[in-house]
């Protein structure tokens, strides 16, 4: 340890310091030790820190200064939709009437909460064009698995137990094949064609009566709209399979097109992406799932229903796949998404997609001069560049990403999707101004020039961050996953 290390909270600890005071005990005490016996009374206290309240604030303020959020600067992280997180969302989520209510209260005492959930279900049905929505899934991947379990239940209800495969494109998010496995399916890959879209011939080859579903995000992870979606839906449906929509990229098409109208049977949404739930440093998210009328009986239970003017839970759903999560989903995140939808309305959400797509295309045209652009058609909300030109100069995409840190930017997603060499996946979002985009473009052009004329400065980046490149190999080989007192 050198003197520049930022101390751990445990290293700030000093015996006898406190930052928490409990009320004095106001009831007669009983002898707990006698009751529990030595076997169940903890003999050694867990080594939590002993710090003052100011110690805590200095510690976490210091840590926050060593972190980077959307409020810190531009965050063009492809497929992650790092848009601005409205502050009204945070205020609303902290109202006592929303944050301090218990999931087992009588429905008549939580009518406001149920009304919000019902209204959100209805709004998401309209935005996606689906017949039913459940808010229970906690995140995108959780929604994917929920959707696949419904598809599985549907096939099984039809006596169809031989549909063991789920098709995913080679450009799919990693969660797609992983969710397929967790749901008990085998993931099979369909190839992309030279335009970056699903190869219909290959789809016809892999589809069959053993296929449960095709998982697709549209626009796909290259930011390209799958123009043959209607044909693809026909191919899959004709073979008895279902079409699954990964809603990670919905920010591109709101008000322009709806998954339900494209022929999708199941949709999940990432409310922490398109609908401004903050990412929180990795979560919590929320991944509601929408379905066609045919699959509605399989939705997780309970659903929120409105009977006359009373909102309540519907548990009597005999074909439901059951619960995917205790209680009713990540209510606090759903509430933030609801606040956003009510702020924007139909007009605002359509502008969101319009500007997200305009921003992406503008950046793509400015950057294609200096970086390879594998697919040159208009993109949607994001685009993928290839750093192969720079790689020939000895500068890898990883180096470009690290160099961006020196200029105060969060880098784009790198090395994804897998079907583009040295990929740089850029998603600007609609909440960024032209000045911000121009600043980033200038920096990217400068880095391309540095790669030619002064590659070391890129290869050795970052230069200005609190730590330099980390030794990830040792971290994985000899894992240190917790602190032990010296």
């Amino acid at each position, binding site marked *: 340890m050198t003197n520049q290390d*930022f101390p751990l909270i*445990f290293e700030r600890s000093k015996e006898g310091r*406190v*930052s*928490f005071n*409990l*009320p004095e005990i106001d009831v007669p*005490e009983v002898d707990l030790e006698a009751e529990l016996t030595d*076997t169940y*009374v903890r003999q050694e206290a867990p080594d*939590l820190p002993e710090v003052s309240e100011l110690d805590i604030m200095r*510690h*976490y*303020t210091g840590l*926050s200064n060593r972190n*980077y959020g959307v409020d810190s600067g531009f965050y063009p992280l492809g497929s992650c939709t*790092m848009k601005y*997180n409205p502050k009204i969302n945070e205020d609303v989520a902290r109202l006592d*009437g929303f944050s*301090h*209510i*218990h999931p087992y209260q009588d429905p008549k*005492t*939580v009518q406001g909460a149920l*009304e919000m959930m019902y209204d959100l279900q209805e709004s998401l049905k*309209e935005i996606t064009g689906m017949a039913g929505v459940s808010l229970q899934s906690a995140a995108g991947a959780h929604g994917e*698995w929920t959707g696949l379990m419904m598809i599985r239940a549907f096939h099984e209800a039809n006596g169809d137990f031989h549909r063991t495969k789920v098709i995913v494109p080679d450009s799919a998010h990693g*969660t797609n*094949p*992983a969710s397929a496995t967790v749901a008990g399916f085998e993931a099979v890959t369909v190839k992309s064609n030279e335009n970056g879209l699903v190869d219909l011939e290959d789809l016809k080859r892999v589809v069959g009566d053993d296929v449960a579903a095709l998982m697709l995000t549209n626009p796909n992870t290259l930011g390209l*709209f799958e123009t043959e979606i209607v044909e693809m839906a026909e191919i899959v449906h004709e073979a008895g399979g279902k079409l699954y929509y990964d809603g990670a990229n919905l920010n591109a098409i709101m008000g322009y*097109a709806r998954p339900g109208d494209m022929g999708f049977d199941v949709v999940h949404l*990432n409310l922490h992406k398109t609908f401004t739930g*903050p*990412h929180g*440093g*990795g*979560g*919590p998210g929320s991944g509601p799932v929408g379905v066609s009328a045919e699959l509605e009986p399989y939705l997780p239970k309970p659903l929120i229903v409105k009977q006359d003017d009373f909102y309540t839970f519907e548990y009597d759903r005999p074909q439901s796949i059951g*619960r*995917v*999560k*205790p209680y009713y989903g*990540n209510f606090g995140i759903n509430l933030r998404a609801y606040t956003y939808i*009510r*702020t924007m*309305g139909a007009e605002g959400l359509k*502008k969101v997609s319009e500007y997200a797509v*305009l921003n992406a295309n*503008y950046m793509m045209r400015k950057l294609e001069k200096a970086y390879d652009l594998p697919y040159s058609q*208009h993109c949607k909300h994001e685009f993928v560049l290839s750093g192969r030109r720079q790689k020939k100069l000895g500068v890898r995409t990883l180096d470009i990403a690290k160099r961006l840190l020196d200029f105060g930017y969060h880098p784009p997603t790198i090395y994804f999707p897998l079907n583009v060499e040295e990929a740089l996946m850029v998603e600007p979002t*609609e909440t960024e101004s032209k000045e911000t985009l121009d600043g980033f473009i200038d920096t990217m052009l400068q880095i391309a020039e540095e790669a030619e004329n002064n590659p070391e400065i890129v290869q050795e980046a970052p230069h200005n961050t609190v730590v*330099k490149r980390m*030794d*990830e190999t040792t*971290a*994985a080989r000899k894992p*240190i*996953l917790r*602190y032990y007192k010296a």
Partner: protein
Amino acid sequence: MDFRFLPMTENDKKEMLDTIGISSTDELFSDIPEKVRLKRDLNLKAPKSEADLKKELVQMANKNYNLKEYTSFLGAGVYDHFIPSVVDHVISRSEFYTAYTPYQPEISQGELQAIFEFQTMISELTGMPVANSSMYDGGTSLAEAVNLSAGQTRKKKVLVSKAVHPESQAVIETYGKGPNLEIVYIDHVNGLTDLDQLAKELDENTASVVIQYPNFFGQIEPLAEIRELLNQQPKSMFIVSSNPLSLGYLTPPGKFGADIVVGDTQVFGIPAQFGGPHCGYFATTEKLMRKIPGRLVGQTTDENGLRGFVLTLQAREQHIRRDKATSNICSNQALNALASSVAMSSIGKHGLKKMSELNMQKARYAKQKFVEEGFEIVTNGTFFNEFVVKLPVSVSVANEKLLEKGFIGGYDLASYYPELEGHMLVAVTEIRTKEEIDAFVKELGDIHD
């Protein structure tokens, strides 16, 4: 309507269209086939100004009876504990809450270190050497543990105590359909797992035994005896779901040879918020370290030898391993893990024991008051901060009357246990005062009469 999150001006738009070489943004959407284009406006409520929307949502919130205005004895997995003010001040820092997953360690040391500290605290509490960075909640964390046990032991039979949270039981069932698990339920006797039945069912086909400690009825399950039973089938795994606050006073499951310990840190700094987001934790042995679901943060050094932190052992995860990943989890509950870390730091080493004790003392006082009032307490073993009271009327009738007096009564066990009609699960946390407990018991006694 003006949209305050959209900075695009007409001039900007024109310049950008020129750069692209098109005249209208419609051209950017021309690749969407005519047939699937939406040719009408979405039918949503009209947009609202910040002032109007806030007013509406405050009114909506006010329709809910909240735990700050009503005196609550409701627990059953979600608890009303004191939350130190520092917690919300820390998690409101936007460098934390507007950040993505810390994939770029050079500018994410704050989040990474905070998670490393969280992992350490969970490891300390549970007595397990390894803990991950969080799961969605206690229920899904438990279901992932069950699936892991089946994969690891290559066995399909799982013994789940009926004294495990019933909604966690339901989640285990749904998750178990993927790998086609056989879930066998072990009954409870007066709120404790039936060890005779457990002993009978436990055999060489058992992947794992799932116990909650303290269990759903608040009872402290005899982990030492269950461990002894499991020693007969050493290949079967011991999975314990545990309220981490109770571990301030109780011997941690790690001491009883648990293979996986899971639970929810909602008790530390996270409001009830109608059931979520809360924060699952997942702790295990060194042996299972490379099978653990979700993200892990590890300590390492940078090029200059400075200590730093990175996401590690990522070969387990979906973004690397895809269909061979140990789980599909991607987003977790990072911000809530941070909230719990701050709360645990604030409560501290000695505060935790005191807080745990205070819950137990207050719950024992409440139980004694019920006995004095003539109620039958169905759970008669040692317990944490919950116990079961038998009422002469249905719990919903009782709760209706309590509500009129300003109380949110306990949990109606008949919702999941038909045989427990008229049985209320009462939770007493450190924030309930003697006066509140006295008044609550008296009100219920009046219903009794």
